[in-house]
């Protein structure tokens, strides 16, 4: 299965996302921001980083990139799209997901191993989790505070569109402890924490078993491969 990983100028975690795809058993395909061609990929990952410096608003300039036009169109047709951190911000700026992401309430960049609760398993990116499962995924961002107006929040909660919630500790002031969202159809998922940094023992978050042994993030990528095979 071919999973596209988009590189914008300023993208940082593209090689990490490619590695994650590979470790899950997929074939990573590099996509370039200026390209409109999606190279027949079966799913797309918008990785983390500081696309275009994250100037103006995080993800705002990237949302205008030619590749996004194709992705928005393909997403409407059901293409699985995962936005991680800056990728989530790009999805929000592209209006593929509602609301906005603003400066962390602590006013600093935050890098930590973060506990999450999986709130929705009916998406191609989360189907290998169990509902309510607790996972630990590294979080690292300066602007991860999720906000939306009261009505949008109500709709998100009512329709079960919250995909992940922060557990035990809200690192950035996100409303309703929201760490990640899905769209109505379920094919588009975005979250602030970085599953691609929890895919390889030795380089992931600490667990009680051994240091840096956490690989909870791998399931995002095995999920999408599974759903593509089943589709």
């Amino acid at each position, binding site marked *: 299965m071919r999973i596209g990983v988009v590189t914008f100028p300023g993208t940082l975690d593209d090689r990490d996302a490619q590695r994650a795809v590979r470790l899950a058993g997929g074939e990573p395909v590099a996509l370039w921001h200026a390209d409109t061609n999606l190279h027949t990929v079966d799913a797309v990952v918008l990785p983390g980083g500081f696309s275009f410096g994250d100037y103006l608003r995080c993800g705002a300039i990237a949302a205008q990139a030619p590749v996004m036009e194709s992705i928005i169109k393909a997403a409407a047709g059901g293409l699985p799209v995962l936005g991680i951190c800056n990728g989530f911000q790009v999805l929000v700026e592209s209006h593929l997901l509602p609301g906005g992401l603003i400066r962390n309430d602590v*006013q600093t960049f935050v890098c930590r191993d973060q506990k999450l609760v999986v709130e929705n398993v009916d998406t191609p990116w989360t189907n290998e989790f169990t509902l309510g499962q607790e996972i630990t995924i590294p979080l690292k961002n300066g602007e991860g505070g999720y906000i939306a107006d009261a009505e949008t929040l109500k709709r998100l909660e009512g329709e079960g569109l919250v995909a992940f919630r922060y557990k035990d500790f809200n690192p950035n002031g996100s409303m309703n402890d929201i760490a990640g969202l899905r769209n109505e159809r379920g094919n588009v998922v975005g979250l602030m924490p970085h599953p691609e940094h929890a895919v390889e023992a030795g380089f992931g978050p600490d667990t009680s078993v051994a240091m840096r042994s956490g690989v909870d993030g791998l399931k995002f990528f095995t999920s999408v491969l599974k759903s593509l095979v089943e589709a």
Partner: protein
Amino acid sequence: MPKIIVEVMPKADLLDPAGKAVNNALHRNGHNEIANVRIGKRIELHFDRAVTEADVAAAQKIGEEFLSNAVIEDVVSVTIEN
């Protein structure tokens, strides 16, 4: 240099953590007369010629569609400084 100034503020009913942090700091320094602080952006578009009405209309559109995110922000003013 002629410019159009586009000003963008976080929506009134949404959180503004940066404004809150500044407000708290001002209160710690005794500025209790200030009730609240909100922080937005001032974006200057510079021209090397005089600004036209069409430029202002374009700036308004750029402001609403790109310089601000309508979901969380408002364009509160677009002015010319020639």
